[in-house]
């Protein structure tokens, strides 16, 4: 078991609890779609799993490491080494070129494989765009770079929060296809937040979040 979310609770200051008692597991190589109404806490859960935020209760274990005892630095190391993230937007570092963005995470982990990165760029159709800066890319291109960067780091777990939320249908289909095929190729696990039943249907498993619990 790669990811084990166990009775997790989370509330924001001054608000009702968002996650009351959420449990979920994800195995190596598995893909899981997380759906739920807007505001149901999908992003919150994903961020917790990504060690970006701290839990109020319960525990999340990633590849045998419990997250809650970790300090800021420990979590940063975990993110760097084991997790890749793709968000709805603002994934890229604005001051770096597409090429630099692509390899940035991999270089942070020290696992840079230039051949693999070039292959990814090729597969994602980014070869032409390498010297450009993110602000000069379309939304779909940006998301492809984000996926490329995520995969270049060869993560164990890929977390994606509505990666196609900003895109039109064709673009979103392309992006999703690429992501799924890359995940399949590398054997990484995928937790994907989405609103779309169609997308959810293409993944191995499906979880629905409502009332702070997995239905």
């Amino acid at each position, binding site marked *: 078991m790669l990811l084990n979310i166990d009775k997790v609770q989370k509330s924001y200051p001054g608000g009702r609890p968002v996650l009351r008692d959420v449990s979920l597991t994800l195995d190596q190589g598995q893909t899981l779609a997380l759906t739920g109404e807007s505001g149901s806490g999908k992003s919150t859960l994903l961020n917790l799993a990504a060690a970006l*935020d701290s839990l109020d209760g319960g525990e999340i274990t990633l590849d045998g490491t419990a997250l809650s005892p970790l300090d800021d630095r420990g979590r940063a190391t*975990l993110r760097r080494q084991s997790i890749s*993230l793709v968000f709805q937007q603002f994934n890229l*570092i604005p001051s770096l070129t597409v090429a630099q963005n692509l390899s940035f*995470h991999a270089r942070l982990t020290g696992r840079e494989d230039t051949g693999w990165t070039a292959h990814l760029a090729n597969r994602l159709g980014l070869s032409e765009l390498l010297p450009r800066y993110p602000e000069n890319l379309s939304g779909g291109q940006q998301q492809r770079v984000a996926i490329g960067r995520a995969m270049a780091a060869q993560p164990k777990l890929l977390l994606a929060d509505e990666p196609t939320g900003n895109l039109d249908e064709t673009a979103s289909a392309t992006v999703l296809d690429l992501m799924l095929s890359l995940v399949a190729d590398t054997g990484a696990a995928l937790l994907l937040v989405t609103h779309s039943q169609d997308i959810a249907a293409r993944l191995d498993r499906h979880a629905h979040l409502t009332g702070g619990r997995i239905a």
Partner: protein
Amino acid sequence: MTWAVTQALLSHWRRHRLQLATLLIGIALATGLWSAVQAINAEARASYQRASDQLALGRYDELRDPSGPIPLARYVALRRAGWQVAAVLEGSLQVGDRRVQVLGVDMVTYPALPAVTQVEQSDTPPDPADMLTAPGRLLAAPDLAQTLGVRSDFPPILPSDALPSDLILTDIGVAETLLNQPGQISRLIVLPDQPMGIPPLSEIAPDLERINASTRLDTTQLTDSFHLNLTAFGLLSFAVGLFIVHGTVGLAFAQRRGMIRTLRALGVSMRRLVWMITAELTLLALIGGALGLILGFFLAGALLPDVAATLRGLYGAPVDGQMRLQPEWVVAGLAIALAGTLLASGHALHRLSRMPLLSGAGLQAWRGAASGRRATALIGLALIAGGFVTAYAFEGLVAGFAMVAGILTGAALVLPALLSFALSLLQRGARGPVTQWVWADMRAQLPGLSLALMALLLALAANIGVGTMVSSFRLTFTGWLDQRLTSELYVTAADDQQGQQIAQWLDPQVDAVLPIRSIELAHLSGPLFLYGIVDHQSYRQNWPLIASSDEVWDRVLAGEAVLINEQLARRSNLWPGDDLTLKPDQTLTIAGVYSDYGNPTGQAIVSMAQLDRIAPGADTRRFGIRLAPERATEMAQALRDQFDLPRQAVVQQASMKAQSLAIFDKTFVVTSALNILTLGVAGFAILTSLLTLWTQRLPQIAPVWALGLTRAQLARIELLRSVLLAALTAVLALPLGLVLAWALLAVINVQAFGWRLPMYLFPEDWAYLFALTLLAAFIAAALPALRLLCLPPADLLKVFAYER
């Protein structure tokens, strides 16, 4: 609706109090420093104007006797030959601890002076009989009148605020008694209306010299350089202050974009919004301006006494150290605050007005286009070149300052391109991904920071330049004092006769008695003081010659040649080998040029015999005395006792040097104060720029954080970034500062004072300044870094979740 919109707009400031404070402080600093300088200049200028109006100075030609006072009989003879002249007797008087000038004019023939008119038109006009006959009346500024009032041996005093401080105006008959110079006249002013057919001066009074009003150096001319200097500093501070305003307004607008979009979506027109925001800015400008005026008033009040002392010491310009609040000044201050604020906000306002209703995030637009940067840099280079060309093509102080302004502005404009270039080099050399990102990120941030960095560059360059100038000047001046003040004692006798007695009495007791005798001549370039010297090693060994020909001393002492001071040499372009005409029939070859600081007028030295030939019978009242240094104190006292001389009539070399240096140091107090303030303001500008960039930082930082860097790491990088940019700027500021110093020493000083100074380098000062800069940058970045360190992850996460 207007009210609702107003409330919405103003609510922003309630939530961002620090920002509001920063904006107001920025406006206040800019207005304050500028207004302070304006107030100081205006006050000093008003003082000269008052003095020259009050005393009708510089309006008439004058007749003088180079060898001393003019006897009364000569005045009557001139009058009876038809010459319309008015007599003036001047002198100084010690009253308690104050030294006051006495100006005695023939009230009957002298042109009406404002003070006299004022007194006569008052409710209780004095009887003319009292003014003109014994004991007479003294007119003095109210505070001096009070001081004088306690002296029972003085004639009654009439206070008048139409007089400069430290001056007593009275009838010449009264002045004769007061100064104990019966039958003597210092100078005659030539009245504007002269009758037909008067004989030429050379026929009836060949010993008198006519000095044209235009060739007399007037105070305004002399002090222009000083004021230009202050104005330049004021402008610099103002510009630096505006950087702060620009930064803060930019931030406030960026943060209010969302609100404005919503307001527009709700049907408020853009025109209305722009109008209302302009009104809001106007209000803020007025509040900030008012604060600035208060600041400026007190700053000027604090600096004015030093300025007054400087102007009095350096130029003998009459300035009272009192600040008066002028309504024009207040209006001008508020206007400049408003103009500055609108200028600094214009860009942001323009961008806001162009913002499409449904725009995306758009924050990335802060990245400056490389082409724009190149164009700016080219303009900068052109300005620098233009500056140099101006200085070479045109003469004069204004050209000098134009050059400095061109170089400084040009360098500031080139700065972003230079920094960007430096960063791209560093980026290329960088190995790790994080370092690479840091450099890239810094480059990306440059446009937002460059204004603040330009401000820093200017402040630093000004500091280095002015500091180098002052220190070089001081070093030169100290060395020059050592050369120039060779005598151990200097004594001033009451009159020629006492002078002779003193010389006789001293002769057997000391190594040498060197008479110091001088007369005032008129030269094309202005008044010229001619000194006579006797042959002595003191001169041959020590005199600070900067240009000389062979056997300079032998030729001067043989009466064949003359030495002139640097001011005269540069002003009239006279150098060794040229001729100097002292009087129509007295022309001597120039054998050498000597440096002569702290003196605005021309000077020349001839042998004592030659001086006697030019002006027979000139008084010798001053002497330099050479003796063993350890005997100086004892001899000074002996002299005072023997001849009943007042304390200040016998001065020791050491105290003379100390006094000179004290005056010197005072001269630059204002300059250094403004220097430090400018640097402080530049530091503050960096802080505000960083705060401005803060909101725009999150989208830059959040992805990096998400990819596995801790907030502590990022905070450290923030600090490092600011310090590094400051350091780079400081490194670039050093050569700029040295160029500025060179310009000040070799161009401005020559134009303003008539002397060129050697340039010395003071690396310790640079190191100190460098450290100070890094500290300032560190402090400025500390607040944003601390904020980053304590930032809840949720805030970073918002970047990914919400559209901004």
